């Protein structure tokens, strides 16, 4: 399984624009990390995005995590105000694994 995270918007939107996405191939990770990530993905998938307000929220960030299992791709799109705690945990874990890797 391969995970791709694109972050955009926010107060520092200018710094994020055009930055390369964060990509993690689970097959390159230690088994425990890979299993944990896969679990977080299934939790994040199950929690739908909270209803967005009709107005855009100034300076909130948005996140697109693309889950590629080799056969199909699924994009999970959330924002600071619509994401579940599970989704937030997945974003956090992706950051940690990417910076340690």
């Amino acid at each position, binding site marked *: 399984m391969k995970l791709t995270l694109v972050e955009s918007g*926010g107060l*520092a*939107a*200018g710094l994020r624009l055009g930055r390369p996405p964060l990509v993690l191939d689970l097959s390159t990770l230690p088994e425990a990390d890979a299993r944990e990530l896969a679990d977080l993905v299934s939790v994040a998938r199950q929690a739908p995005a909270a209803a967005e307000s009709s107005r*855009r929220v*100034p300076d909130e960030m*948005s996140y697109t995590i693309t889950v590629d299992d080799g056969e199909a791709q699924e994009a999970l*799109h959330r924002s600071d105000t619509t994401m579940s705690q599970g989704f937030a945990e997945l974003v956090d874990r992706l950051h940690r694994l990417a910076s340690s890797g």
Partner: protein
Amino acid sequence: MTEKRVLNCIVPPHILAKLLESSDAEIREAAMRTLLTTMRLQGEREVRATLLGRAAPAEGRRTVYDCRHSTFLPSAVLARSEDGASSGDDSVNRAFDGFGATRQFYLEIMGRNSIDDRGMRLDGYVHRGVDYNNAFWDGQEMVFGDGDGRIFSDFTGSLDVIGHELTHGVTEHTAGLEYHNQSGALNESMSDVMGCLVKQWTMRQTAEDADWLIGAEVFTPGFDGDALRSLKAPGTAYDNDTFGKDPQPDHMDGYLELPDTDEGDNGGVHLNSGIPNHAFYQAAVGIGGYAWEAAGHIWYESLRASTPTTDFQAFADTTVGKAGDLYGSSEQDAVRDAWDHVGISVSSGTARRRPPVSVPGGNGTTAEVARDMDQLLAQVERLRQDLHLPA
């Protein structure tokens, strides 16, 4: 007894307006002197607040919550309230103090009672999430991240960032500028402008002396750059290998056509804001002195006169019109030159002509009365000049 009356009794605005329009020079001057005396005693903005029937400060009560690194705001715990003791947590105190400075700026300088002009509570949430590199306004409260500690540090660190976020609330309650394309870039720009003004006012800096940077303090020393954005020189806030060069344009020639999507920053709202940002800087320096005085008032009143779909040209036209209404020809020229500098031309025919002063009536909304008061104060200023009275 007589003196007490002068101190406490303020002539109702509709009567004052009639007196100031009187054909009898003596009556005009008497009305003028009454108003000036009161203004000198109490301060112009306070007189305005009193005329609008408002209570003095102490509204916009502040509460700061600690998210304890969760992204789920309802689980945050109370960390400091308006009447409570200060916290042992610097982030909490910085958010609290930043709210106070911004609230005071809007009250004293703009005559605005908190975000909604009706004393709206100011709620803040600090330590949101883990290593969260952002701060935002969600329509009800301000949310701050701690930063990742490598590039970004605590987002409560910059007073201009706090002023920026609260101004998103002010914009939502006034023009309601839609958060995409040019109206969105104006929305962002208004937040940058007022964020800078809150900081400059707090530090008593002139337009010439200020750094005009947004978010200089949200970075760690590990970041090779000055800030998130610069109003003085958009496009120069940073230039490094990790993030490249600050992409903000400072002129319409560099306007970035980006998709109206999350990935495209809703049509580049944080990028194209460089254009109106730089126009404000040029206007402030062109007029000189403190930017929160003439330039700040002109921009704020133009925001109040704007609509959700106002674009750069329409906003520029409004500011030139307001500069003439509220100040005079030299300020109007400075504002027109400022827009010209960023590639937006406002012909003298385009700028709105000064409307006749209407007499505030008893049935208008607060906003209408406030607008009438602005016109009245401008009229008073012209009259003061006619009569050669000291300011």
